């Protein structure tokens, strides 16, 4: 039931790049793969239930006022079947997810080649905008620059209420909490622009707390962050 509707999503036409099915990098690729597996299994379950209900409604409608059906109180074998069946299905979905969560949350292992090349960026939320602080101590507001093809490790914090950092096409979302530093990981495989916004209600400006991510070729990335103004008066999360 969901499949045709999700496929018909017109988001591919939109200028705003926030549909996670249009993946922009390796972490989101893994989520998209999981999503379609779930859509397949979920649709099969829905279809099964819908067909059974359809059959019941057509075949077993009352035809004579005095008819009395056989009084079946239960069939143990059937009940075991529809306990064990979903168990196997859910265990499979659990296993598929489990295989991905470490990577999605923490990124490539720190001692791997990809892990060593990872670029750290601090993400600081406040009512109602985002500040991004780079390894060189420079900052940008509302727009985050990242090097394309390189894992980016994020450290998030908030200066006031809870905010949520989310740029769907390049990876998982993560809360920016006051008083607690969170870590996350994003990666864009190609240069381009990606959109996102705060997902945790943070006050009257919540809807306007947008995020633009510009993924640049690595050399251009270094040149761009060198020209940004230095960050002042912000907590140092990982620098």
């Amino acid at each position, binding site marked *: 039931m*969901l499949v045709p*509707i*999700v496929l018909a999503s017109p*988001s591919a*036409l*939109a200028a*705003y790049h*926030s549909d*996670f099915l249009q993946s922009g990098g390796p972490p*989101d690729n893994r*989520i998209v793969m*999981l999503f379609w597996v*779930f859509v397949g299994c*979920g649709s099969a*379950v829905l279809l099964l*239930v819908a067909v*059974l*209900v359809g059959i*019941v409604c057509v075949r*077993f*409608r*009352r035809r004579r006022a005095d008819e009395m*059906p056989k009084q*079946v*109180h*239960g069939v143990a074998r059937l*009940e075991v079947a*529809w306990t064990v069946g979903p168990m196997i299905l*859910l*265990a499979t*979905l*659990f296993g598929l*997810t489990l295989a991905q*969560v470490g990577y*999605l*949350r*923490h990124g490539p292992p720190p001692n791997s080649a990809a892990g060593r090349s990872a670029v750290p960026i601090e993400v600081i939320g406040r*009512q109602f905008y985002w500040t991004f602080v780079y390894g060189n101590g420079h900052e940008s507001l509302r727009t985050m620059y990242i090097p394309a093809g390189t894992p980016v490790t994020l450290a998030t914090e908030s200066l006031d*209420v*809870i905010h*949520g950092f*989310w740029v*769907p096409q390049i990876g998982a*979302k993560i*809360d920016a*909490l*006051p*008083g*607690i530093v969170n870590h996350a990981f994003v990666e864009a495989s190609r240069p381009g622009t990606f*959109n996102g*916004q*705060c*997902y*945790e*209600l*943070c*006050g*009257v400006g*919540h*809807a306007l707390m947008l995020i633009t991510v510009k993924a640049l070729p690595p050399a251009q990335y270094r040149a761009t962050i060198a020209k940004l103004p230095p960050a002042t008066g912000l907590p140092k999360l990982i620098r």
Partner: protein
Amino acid sequence: MATADLPIARPVPRTYSGVAEWLTTVDHKRIGIMYFVATAGFFAVGGLMALLIRTQLAQPDNTFLSASQYNQLVTMHGTTMIFLFVIPIWSGFGNYMVPLMIGARDMAFPRINALSFWLLLLGGAVMYSGFLFGGSAAAGWTGYVPLTEKLYSPQVGQDLWILGIHIIGISSVMGAANFLVTIQRMRAPGMTWFRLPLFVWAMEVTSALVLLASPFLAAALAMVLLDRQLGTSFFNPAHGGNVILYQLIFWFYSHPAVYIMILPGFGVISEILPVFSRKPVFGYRTMAYSIAAIGVLGFMVFAHHMFTVGLPLPVQVFFMATTMVIAIPTGVKVFNWIATLWGGSIRFTAAMLFSIGFILMFTIGGVDGVFMASLGIDYQLNGTYWVVAHIHYVLVGGSLMIIFAGLFYWWPKITGRFLNERLGKWQFWLLLLGFNLTFLPMHILGVMGMPRRIYTYGPGTGWGPINAAETVGSFIIAVSIMVFLYNMALSLHAPATAPSDPWEGNTLEWLTTSPPPPHNFDELPEVRSLRPVRDLRLAGRPATRAQPAQS
């Protein structure tokens, strides 16, 4: 041994008439009716708020509402529908039906019962009074800190919201204790635990959940109130407080609350399907056990609301596992309901249509919930319109559908009159259409990256056309509700023609008159099975008619 027939001495309570009678009543049936009327009023208010919200979102860059008004409406819509409609309307059904279904004279504590009801009204009034004093609460029904701290939400409406929920909480805890004692102690002779109607089973488990979980919500909100009024620092990071602590305690209540809102519905559908298919419920014991299993597991899944707050990964994996496990007893129930219908002799009354609609819509709400149980997928869908779609498939496609099924089913018992079946079918199809037009596309919006609780969005997002269609859907829902209002008005003006057992019922409430006399039953048969009234009917004994109350 000689016996003498002595007249039964019944104490004659002091009676009032008119409004005073309703204000002073401790009769479970009258209190049940007052719950229905009050929660219907709150439903209307919450529904109008939803229409305002949908109007604002109908097109990009809309200025129908300000951000502040929008946040207040979103908060009060959610709070109203959860705390003032779905949870208490089950108290209405429970109040009216539990004593009748177990063959009792009344609830165990009639005065406490009345107090529970009046506190619900008081709590609602306190919560809404924020609108009179500079604005209501505006931090969402979840009321996350530190947004609800005084620094960020200075309005007194936030304090009144907390106090209102505290009062409502006292009301539902007292109601739950009352149900537990009533069901434990006041069952008819022969009504063992495994001859108990499934609706009563559901009310038993639901009441246990209310009793065990509500204090946690009260504690979390009390801490916020102390932070706001006395400057304690439970949740102030600058003074060593922790903002995640609130969420842990809040969801320890609020996830079980989801089952508080749906388990009684599981019970209602398990009463209706057997009656209109002339078959016993399939796998009665499994159904009872699965209600209990859902009640227990319901306490072990709460952190799945918090997959993006940065809890340690092993903790997240634990809650992913428990969340997937709780899908199993729920799935078993769906298949058992279908098996109840299978091979039956199905009569498609309005109550039956709503019940079958419930099975399909609730299954969608179960399946899209499993997506969010998966840590990877939830890292995208958490906090988006997918969540809004899911909660409405569970609470509208689930709870609301089955509330209407229950109303059509028990309306003759409560009023002595029938609702018009034809209008009921119109209402069902309109609701099904409007509901799916409103909430099915929200799955797409979630995938497209639309966060929940935003009051506006840009035209470039591409979210406009889908939102416009959803707004149309929400007004179709409103039309279907108006059909129901018209139907009720029509019915209440018609003569009382409902017999004691209009549907070939199974359970004891169909043994007494419609509506029942104040004392419910003149005499009760010994209960020998799950379907005592059917047993009597097949044995050729007409349902015992209780004598009208003496005036």
